[in-house]
């Protein structure tokens, strides 16, 4: 074919162009924390607030890792809080009856994966749009929890002082919550899988152009099912961690995490149309959402402002990304 100069290597400008969404979200995060620190240095220059963030953020942070894969596919999952609830119930029942936390977690995880598989089959094989399929399973699994427990909670009275508690939600040196380390570890591993593994690469390809992915031999149905199974696993893990942190199962466990988790993923720059996202963006989105309420209160605003500020942050973020994408095109 026609001769010519070799296609060149990428430039720093291209690096910026490819990474401007994560850079933008990181800048928003730094700017917001600068405002918090200036507005209330007594709170934001002390370690206590960060320890508090590290103990509460990981639960929906772990969910957000799974949601990043689902949204990158161009799909959605609304059932993960219910999967979390049902899996957590299994963990609570099995751990209190057998006294084996490991066995309880294996069953809890297996259930989460199985429920994810059901979602995956409904979406990929039966062909039900994901928003419809997962609304159905959201009510189904939450309803099942309600039927099973009849409004009653379960106290994990045997958890206190166990190795399992130390490993999952203990405090390193009395300061750093273990669940935060687990969250960082999972985000790092699955962030690597997302960008540097065949699976993650094919997830992005399917989300970007599903017919093309099929044409080049990618088993698109299988990729979708695997993502939903993964999401189920993350929901079960988040259920176990949150249960161990408070030592008590309650039937509404996980219910408040749906919108905050989705918001964190969208703020993090994962495209709602699929094919684009970063795990770094998701992590920053999680940190932003997780710290916003405390930040708002500590700068002197009342709790009535919290939802307004969430909305403002989400709207500004997606607006910035939309403008960036338009310019790129």
């Amino acid at each position, binding site marked *: *074919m*026609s*001769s*010519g*100069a*070799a*296609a*060149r*290597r*990428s*430039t720093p400008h*291209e*690096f910026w162009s*490819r990474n401007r969404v994560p850079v933008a979200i990181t800048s928003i995060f730094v700017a917001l924390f600068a405002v918090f620190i200036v507005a209330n240095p007594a709170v934001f220059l002390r370690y206590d607030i960060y320890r508090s963030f590290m103990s509460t953020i990981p639960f929906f942070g772990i969910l957000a890792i799974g949601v990043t894969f689902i949204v990158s596919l161009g799909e959605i999952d609304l059932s993960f809080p219910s999967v979390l609830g049902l899996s957590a119930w299994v963990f609570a029942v099995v751990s209190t009856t057998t006294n084996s936390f490991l066995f309880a977690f294996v069953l809890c995880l297996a259930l989460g994966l199985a429920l994810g598989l059901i979602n995956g089959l409904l979406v990929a094989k039966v062909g039900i749009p994901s928003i419809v399929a997962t609304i159905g399973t959201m009510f189904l699994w939450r309803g099942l929890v309600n039927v099973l427990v009849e409004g009653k909670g379960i106290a994990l009275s045997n958890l206190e002082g166990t190795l399992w508690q130390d490993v999952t939600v203990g405090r390193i040196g009395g300061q750093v919550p273990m669940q935060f380390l687990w969250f960082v570890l999972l985000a790092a591993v699955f962030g*690597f899988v997302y960008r*540097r*593994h*065949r*699976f993650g*690469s*094919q997830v*992005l*390809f399917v989300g*970007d*152009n599903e*017919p*093309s*992915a*099929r*044409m*080049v*031999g*990618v088993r698109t149905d299988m990729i979708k099912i695997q993502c939903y199974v993964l999401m189920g696993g993350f929901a079960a893990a988040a259920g176990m961690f949150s249960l161990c942190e408070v030592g008590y199962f309650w039937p509404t466990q996980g219910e408040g995490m749906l919108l905050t988790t989705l918001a964190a993923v969208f703020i993090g720059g994962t*495209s709602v149309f699929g*094919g*684009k996202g970063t795990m770094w963006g998701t992590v920053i989105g999680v940190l932003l959402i997780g710290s916003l309420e405390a930040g708002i209160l500590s700068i002197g605003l009342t709790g009535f402002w919290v939802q307004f500020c969430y909305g403002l942050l989400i709207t500004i973020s997606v607006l910035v990304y939309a403008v960036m994408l338009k310019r*790129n*095109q």
Partner: protein
Amino acid sequence: MSSPLLELRDIDLWFGRLNVLKRVSLSIHPGEIVALVGDNGAGKSSLIKVITGVHRPNRGEIRFKGEPITLHSVKKSRELGIETVYQERALADQQELWRNVFCGRELTYFGGFLDVKRQKEETRKLLREYLGFTSEAISVDSEVSVLSGGEKQGVAIARALYFNADVIMLDEPTTGLALAEQRKVLEFIREIPRKGRAAIFIDHNIFHVYDVADRFIILDKGAVAASFTREEITRDELIDRMVELHEKGAITL
């Protein structure tokens, strides 16, 4: 003439009660470009999908390099050496070139982790050797969205050549492209036989088809209506012949 690379014998394809392909037989030899022409619904795309393993024929035989084969997936046909460049351009716009070239055939370390360095090196080689890209705006890290329509088709054809495809199917590769881009794509297609490969070229545009093909097969309503070599017919005669067939009711233009 050398023995055929790909041979179809009496292929029948049914979608329910609809007979989409009717006893279609054709062969393609190394170094040859065969054009499939015909109107919408003539069965061109269905035939391509049979050859690429998307549809399984209800009757007939497919032979590849003399051996009878059963194609049950796109992956299987690609493994054998049959690649397709679809009109939808099998590239994902938001992904980098190095991901696009290797999607579905990633170069990996243990456990499926991508050998990104090698994928980028090989993509760089592909852009240089097969496409001779001169554009300063393109690197292996570029998203496909920055390429023009012709360049995208070029990458899709080069990808097929890179993976040593023996037969490359081109499903309306110039559709929706500007004139200069169409010319670029035709130039890419002319290169295919020079590399010892064969191509099946589907297009509505007789002028494009005649420019690059060695043989012309006219499909109508799922059946082969006529077949000519370039020596047997001029471009105007080909057009006249199609019009003549149309007037006899054998073909709809």
